[in-house]
């Protein structure tokens, strides 16, 4: 054994030294084989502590360093830096975390000292087998992919584009704008959603730094931070975008009307060739193949006949586009809760039960009723409206979490009903009112002052089965009023179900495509819930907005801008240093069994049929080591976590209880 190990035990003031006998650990360490020097010092991370290490490396010719101090997540970088400055490869340093994992976790001094020795011994045995590694420095492509063109994606795109960086925005609907474009007013300021959103949509559509790919979907993402290759399917719209002027004559002439279940939530109709709404960006319509008379029956072509620009192209096919980006921002948003899942609330069965999304369309001046609040017959104004909160939220049968926006938009609905139908009564059925936000509580107070009835209790059912003459022809809301302490039946003309926010139905597929994690509800997981809410577990992929969890517009915008700032920071950096913790397959030992191929979550292992061996693509490997553990031939080595290193650490750690089998 020719390695010369230096062991440094930190006092961390009294943080470590108050529990662990650091001098004893240092003295004992100095007696271990291969240890050339062992010291204890008050603060190893101080510049004097680091200089001590540097000096010893140079003067004593140390080849390996063990630092018994805090968590490697705290100061591993510090000591790697010290080693590097003294000319030693930074990966020849190992930390023994005797603070968080030992001194802070017990007050039994003898046991803590004993455990510290085991941890240090494990580190010594491990570090002897360390190999010098070189960090990989890769350049960062300055282009960014943004998936989703709602307000989160739009904000991020404009921030980056205005900073001079190119953005590819992929939106699966024919227009960007997302859910916000469907809204009428926004709480608590009651400013019109379209008035604040559409200018930003137009900016996005016209910005020279933004390539807008609407009616498109991300098909594949390969690569790693700084160097992703993205494949996007641009779905056939049957409109030649180079010729189309967006005049709208095709929509006018199309004879086929279809119920719009997406933008108008089933409340309105659109044509088979359509733009979701008049302010759509991009301005080009798309032909809905499933409903187009020509595609279904082979004749019609009314749009083509009347198009003055000759832009209708029935022969168009899906196109696959491929481009390179350095970072990805995921802003795929949410799905509203499907109210038919709660049959006792009658949505889809009782005509005058509406979802909040439908109501939002109804009160929108450019919506299907022109902003009039009317029953399903399209003419009758309701004399009483019930608004039921927490539909699908805060309910262990559906979603346990609070959707965070429903209380406030329900109060907004109450305000809008009182404003437009001053004679109508409004009942809000709530569990708790969650008005935690800037000027939210004031808005709640205002709505109460306007005369909205607030009834606390979870609604049991909505029924049209009348028990009294008052209830004839009405919808009856059955609720246990927890403030009165009694069952109540409230007859109303209209019921609005305030549906909650859910992860996109296909969020798990998106997660799989990008290698992200999802929580139990399907929302994407961030790297740290508090200190790193925008970066995902995959380096170079960020999340913002409601795809990460329920949130209102201000937070969504803040997150979008935040994600853009993070990406701009990466672009400014120019390069990214990647840990060289990667797997490697020894081709001579590989039996070609392919067990590892399917284990890799990053598809970083390819199989060469001609040679019957598998190979790790280093750039894709994230270093988890799952394949290393699984290889039956032991052909895979995980750098910095090799089998030999871990075995040696186990042996060292059990120095006091070892019962060598060979003996």
């Amino acid at each position, binding site marked *: 054994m020719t390695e010369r190990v230096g062991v440094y035990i930190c006092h961390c003031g009294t943080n470590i030294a108050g529990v662990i006998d650091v001098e004893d650990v240092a003295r004992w360490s100095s007696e271990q084989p291969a240890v050339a020097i062992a010291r204890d010092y008050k603060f190893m991370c101080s510049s004097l502590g680091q200089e001590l290490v540097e000096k010893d490396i140079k003067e004593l010719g140390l080849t390996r360093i063990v630092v018994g101090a805090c968590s490697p997540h705290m100061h591993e970088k510090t000591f790697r830096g010290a080693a590097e400055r003294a000319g030693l490869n930074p990966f020849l340093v190992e930390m023994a975390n005797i603070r968080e*994992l030992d001194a802070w976790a017990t007050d039994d001094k003898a046991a803590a000292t004993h455990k510290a020795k085991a941890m240090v011994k494990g580190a010594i045995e491990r570090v002897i087998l360390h190999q010098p590694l070189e960090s990989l420095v890769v350049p960062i492509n300055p282009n960014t992919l943004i998936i989703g063109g709602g307000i989160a994606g739009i904000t991020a795109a404009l921030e980056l584009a205005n900073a001079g960086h190119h953005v590819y925005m992929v939106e699966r609907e024919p227009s960007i704008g997302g859910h916000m474009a469907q809204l009428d007013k926004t709480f608590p300021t009651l400013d019109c959603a379209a008035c604040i959103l559409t200018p930003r949509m137009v900016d996005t559509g016209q910005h020279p730094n933004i390539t807008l790919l609407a009616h498109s979907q991300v098909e594949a993402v390969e690569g790693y931070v700084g160097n992703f290759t993205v494949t996007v399917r641009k779905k056939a719209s049957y409109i030649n975008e180079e010729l189309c002027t967006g005049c709208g004559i095709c929509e006018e002439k199309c004879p086929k009307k279809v119920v719009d279940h997406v933008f108008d939530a089933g409340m309105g109709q659109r044509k088979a060739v359509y733009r979701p709404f008049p302010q759509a960006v991009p301005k080009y319509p798309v032909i809905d193949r499933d409903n187009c008379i020509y595609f279904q029956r082979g004749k019609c072509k009314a749009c083509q006949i009347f198009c003055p620009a000759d832009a209708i192209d029935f022969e168009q096919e899906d196109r696959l586009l491929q481009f390179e980006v350095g970072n990805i921002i995921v802003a795929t948003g949410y799905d509203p809760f499907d109210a038919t899942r709660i049959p006792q609330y009658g949505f889809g069965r009782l005509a005058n039960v509406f979802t909040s999304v439908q109501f939002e369309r109804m009160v929108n001046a450019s919506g299907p009723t022109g902003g009039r609040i009317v029953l399903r017959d399209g003419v009758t104004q309701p004399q009483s409206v019930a608004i039921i909160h927490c539909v699908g939220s805060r309910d262990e049968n559906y979603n346990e979490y609070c959707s965070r926006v429903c209380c406030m938009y329900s109060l907004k609905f109450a305000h809008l009903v009182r404003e437009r139908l001053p004679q109508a009564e409004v009942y809000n059925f709530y569990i708790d009112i969650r008005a935690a936000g800037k000027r939210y509580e004031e808005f709640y107070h205002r709505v109460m002052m306007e005369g909205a009835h607030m009834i606390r209790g979870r609604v049991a059912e909505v029924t049209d089965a009348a028990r009294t003459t008052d209830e004839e022809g009405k919808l009856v809301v059955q609720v246990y009023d927890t403030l009165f302490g009694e069952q109540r039946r409230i007859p109303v003309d209209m019921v609005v179900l305030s549906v909650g926010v859910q992860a996109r139905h296909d969020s798990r597929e998106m997660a799989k495509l990008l290698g992200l994690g999802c929580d139990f509800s399907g929302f994407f997981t961030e790297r740290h819930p508090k200190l790193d809410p925008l970066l995902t577990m995959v380096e170079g992929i960020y999340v913002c907005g409601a795809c990460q969890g329920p949130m209102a517009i201000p937070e969504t915008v803040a997150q979008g801008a935040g994600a853009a700032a993070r990406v701009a920071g990466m672009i400014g950096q120019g390069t990214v240093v990647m840990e060289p913790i990667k797997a490697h397959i020894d081709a001579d030992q590989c039996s070609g069994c392919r067990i590892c191929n399917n284990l890799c979550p990053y598809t970083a292992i390819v199989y060469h049929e001609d040679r019957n061996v598998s190979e790790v693509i280093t750039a894709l490997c994230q270093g988890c080591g799952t394949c*290393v553990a699984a290889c039956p031939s032991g052909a895979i080595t995980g750098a910095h976590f090799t089998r030999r290193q871990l075995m040696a650490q186990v042996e060292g750690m059990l120095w006091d209880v*070892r019962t060598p089998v060979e003996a």
Partner: protein
Amino acid sequence: MSESYEPVIVGFLCNWCSYRAADLAGTARLHYAPNMRPIRVMCSGRVEPDLVLKALREGADGVLIAGCHPGECHYVEGNLKALRRYVLLRRLLRQFGIEEARVQLVWASASEGTVLADAVNRMTEQLRALGPLRWRQTVLGGNGHQPEDTQASAASQPAMEEAVTP
């Protein structure tokens, strides 16, 4: 078993969740049994059965494997791979005559310092009740759980291909 018997546990903690949970337990000054000696791995999926057997063979009384919760794995699903191996490993250990409580798998997210601390406390208590492992007697013979030759070969070459098949 001496009256001052303290079990020794080797803990394999994943870098992203469980190791951070242990860091958090320390930062929060949650005191727990000092019997677990931690080894950091990048992912619980890296913990091959060999490492567990190695620890038991070298004198540990138990092995704790800790990873991220299912669905929260930093590497998407490495923890699920660990779970599969763990199930098979336990079956094998049972045949060796090693009690199930000696090898445990827990999920602890980076915010669950208490979960990790509780797991260590619980396991320490269980091992204290079980007494020392005495690998040589239990597995290498003496107690006569298994024919001598198969145990010896299993102990010196615990490759366990069947346990790693996905």
